[in-house]
C-alpha cells in the first residue's frame, strides 16, 4: 500500500511534507507508511486517497482495480435485470459506490461475480451470433423455405386426397404423382438441412460449449497456454512435433495462421539476436531496420519471445476497429467484449497509415498505469500486391509498462467508456458505470 501512495504522490508532484500536512499527520509518519512500516486503514486511508484524488481501493490492493471495474459492468448488466424481475430494487449508484468495498471484503465472492458476469456476456454473445445466423444466413433461409414449401404442397394435396370422396381418376393420378414428387423433394431438402446443421457444430456455439465464447477466445486461450511463445516455429525446431492445435474449426484456422506467421518471423529475426537486442533496450524501429522487416513483424516477434523478456504486449485491430489480436502487457486493461477506448493510439494509427508513432500513454483506472506505446497501420498481407486494389489497413500497437525514465507527458486513454472514470472526454460514447 505504501508503495502505491508514494507512487501516486510522486505522479502528482506533491512532497511528503505537503501531503502529511494535508491529512494531518507528521511527515516522518507518512514516510513510515510509504515504506510499508506502518499499516493504515479507515479514516486515514480515506483522507490520503482523497488528497491523492484516487479511490481508497486504488491504494489498497492493485489487483482489485480491474475487479471493481468488472463488478461495475456486472451491476449494469444482466444481474440487475434479474434482481428487478424478482421484485428486488437495485439502486445502481448506491451499489456501484459499494463495489470497491465488496471486492475488498469478499474477494472470493467478488471474483465469482466478475467471472460469472464474463461468462454471461460470452454466452450472450454466442446466442447473438447464433440468432444472427438463423436470421440472416441465406443458405439456412433457403433450406427452410424449401422444406416449408414442400410440406405445404404435401399437406394440401394429401388432405384433398383424404377428404374428397369422389375424385375422378385423372385428378387422383395427378395428385398421387404430385405427392410422390414432393415427398422426394422433402426428403432431399430435410437431408440438406440436417447436413447444414450438423456441420455447424464446430462454429461459435461449439466453442461456447467448450468454455470459450468465440473462436478468437479459444485461439487466445491456446496461445496463452503456451506463454505466447511457439518453440515449434523456431528454425532448427523441425524435429519438434507440430504443436497441439485447438480442436474447434475456426480457432484452429487462427492458430495455424499464427503458427505460419511465427515461422516466417522467426526466420527473419533470429531468436538469439532478438534476445540480445531486447536486453540492450533497442527500439523496435532499430530492429526493423536491422532485419529488414516491417515494424509490425517486430511487434509480433517481441511478444512471442520466450518468457517475454521486454514485458511487451500487442494489440491488433482491423480497419473497423475490431480487435483481432490481443495480448495485453501486464497491467493494461482491455475490454473483453465490445469496443475499446477510441483514444488508444492503436485507432489513431488508422488515420495515419504507414506512419510509425511512439509515445507514452496513461490508462485511467483506480491507479493509473503508464505504458510506452508504438503503433503502425499498414496494409493487411491478404490482398496486398494486387495492382489497383484499394489497401485494407490493419493497425498494431506494441505496449510495455513505462520505465521510470520515460517521463514524457502521457496521453490519457481509458479501457472502454463503461468502466472509464475520466469525467470529461471528447471521445466518450456512453456513460460510465463507475461512481463519479
Amino acid at each position, binding site marked *: 500500500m505504501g508503495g502505491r501512495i508514494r507512487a501516486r504522490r510522486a505522479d502528482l508532484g506533491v512532497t511528503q511534507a505537503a501531503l502529511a500536512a494535508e491529512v494531518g499527520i507528521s511527515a516522518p509518519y507518512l514516510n513510515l507508511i510509504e515504506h510499508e512500516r506502518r499499516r493504515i486503514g479507515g479514516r486515514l486511508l480515506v483522507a490520503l486517497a482523497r488528497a491523492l484524488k484516487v479511490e481508497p481501493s486504488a491504494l489498497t490492493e492493485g489487483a482489485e482495480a480491474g475487479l471493481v471495474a468488472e463488478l461495475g459492468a456486472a451491476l449494469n448488466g444482466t444481474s440487475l435485470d434479474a434482481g428487478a424481475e424478482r421484485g428486488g430494487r437495485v439502486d445502481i449508484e448506491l451499489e456501484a459506490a459499494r463495489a470497491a468495498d465488496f471486492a475488498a471484503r469478499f474477494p472470493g465472492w467478488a471474483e465469482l461475480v466478475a467471472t460469472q458476469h464474463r461468462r454471461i456476456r460470452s454466452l450472450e454473445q454466442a446466442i447473438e451470433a447464433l440468432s444472427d445466423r438463423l436470421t440472416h444466413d441465406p443458405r439456412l433461409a433457403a433450406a427452410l423455405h424449401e422444406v*416449408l414449401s414442400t410440406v405445404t404442397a404435401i399437406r394440401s394435396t394429401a388432405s384433398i386426397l383424404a377428404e374428397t370422396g369422389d375424385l375422378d381418376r385423372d385428378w387422383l393420378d*395427378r395428385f398421387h404423382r404430385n405427392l410422390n414428387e414432393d415427398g422426394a423433394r422433402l426428403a432431399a431438402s430435410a437431408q440438406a438441412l440436417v447436413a447444414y446443421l450438423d456441420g455447424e457444430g464446430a462454429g461459435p456455439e461449439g466453442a461456447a460449449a467448450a468454455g470459450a465464447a468465440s473462436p478468437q477466445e479459444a485461439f487466445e486461450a491456446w496461445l496463452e497456454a503456451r506463454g505466447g511463445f511457439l518453440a515449434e516455429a523456431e528454425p532448427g525446431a523441425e524435429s519438434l512435433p507440430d504443436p497441439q492445435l485447438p480442436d474447434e474449426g475456426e480457432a484452429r484456422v487462427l492458430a495455424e495462421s499464427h503458427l505460419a506467421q511465427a515461422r516466417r518471423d522467426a526466420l527473419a529475426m533470429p531468436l538469439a539476436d532478438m534476445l540480445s537486442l531486447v536486453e540492450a533496450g533497442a527500439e523496435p524501429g532499430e530492429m526493423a531496420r536491422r532485419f529488414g522487416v516491417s515494424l509490425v513483424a517486430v511487434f509480433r516477434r517481441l511478444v512471442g519471445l520466450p518468457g517475454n523478456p521486454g514485458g511487451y504486449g500487442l494489440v491488433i485491430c482491423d480497419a473497423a476497429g475490431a480487435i483481432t489480436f490481443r495480448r495485453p502487457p501486464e497491467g493494461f486493461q482491455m475490454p473483453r467484449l465490445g469496443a475499446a477506448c477510441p483514444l488508444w493510439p492503436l485507432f489513431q494509427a488508422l488515420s495515419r497509415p504507414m506512419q510509425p508513432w511512439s509515445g507514452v500513454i496513461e490508462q485511467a483506472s483506480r491507479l493509473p498505469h503508464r505504458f510506452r506505446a508504438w503503433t503502425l497501420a499498414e496494409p493487411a498481407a491478404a490482398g496486398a500486391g494486387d495492382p489497383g486494389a484499394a489497401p485494407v489497413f490493419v493497425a498494431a500497437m506494441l505496449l510495455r509498462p513505462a520505465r521510470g525514465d520515460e517521463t514524457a507527458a502521457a496521453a490519457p486513454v481509458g479501457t472502454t467508456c463503461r468502466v472509464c472514470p475520466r469525467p470529461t472526454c471528447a471521445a466518450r460514447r456512453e456513460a460510465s458505470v463507475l461512481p463519479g
Partner: protein
Amino acid sequence: MGKQVLLIEDEPNIIEAIRFILTRDGWAVSSHSDGANAVAVVQERRPDLVILDVMLPNRSGFDILADLRADPALADLPVMMLTARGQARDRAQAEQAGVSRFMTKPFANAEILAAVRELAGPSEGANAAREPDQP
C-alpha cells in the same frame, strides 16, 4: 361464372392444390408465378381476391402489395398473403403494407377456403359448384 381469385405463387403443386380446392367451391381460379410483372397482371385481370406468396421469383410479395395499395383502383382489393415464415416481423411488415389476411405455410385447406370466403364473400358460383376442369 364464380368470383375470380388470382393466385400469385411459384410452387406448381401448391398452385394445383389450391386451384382444385377453390374451383370445387365455385371460384374461378387463375394463377401467375412471376413477381416481376405481378402488379400488371392484377391490374389487367381485376380479380375479386388475390392470394399472394411472399417469396416469389424476381420480386418480393411485400413490394407487390405496396404497389397494389398505391393504385387507387386496387386499394380495397382483398389480398391474402402466404408466407413460409410466420415470424412477427413478416406479419408486421405485411400489415403495414395493407394486407387483408396473413396465412402461414403450411396451412389446412379448410383454412384457405374459409379465409377466401370471408374476404371476398361467398362465391357467386357456390350454388353451381362444379368439378374442376381436367388437369
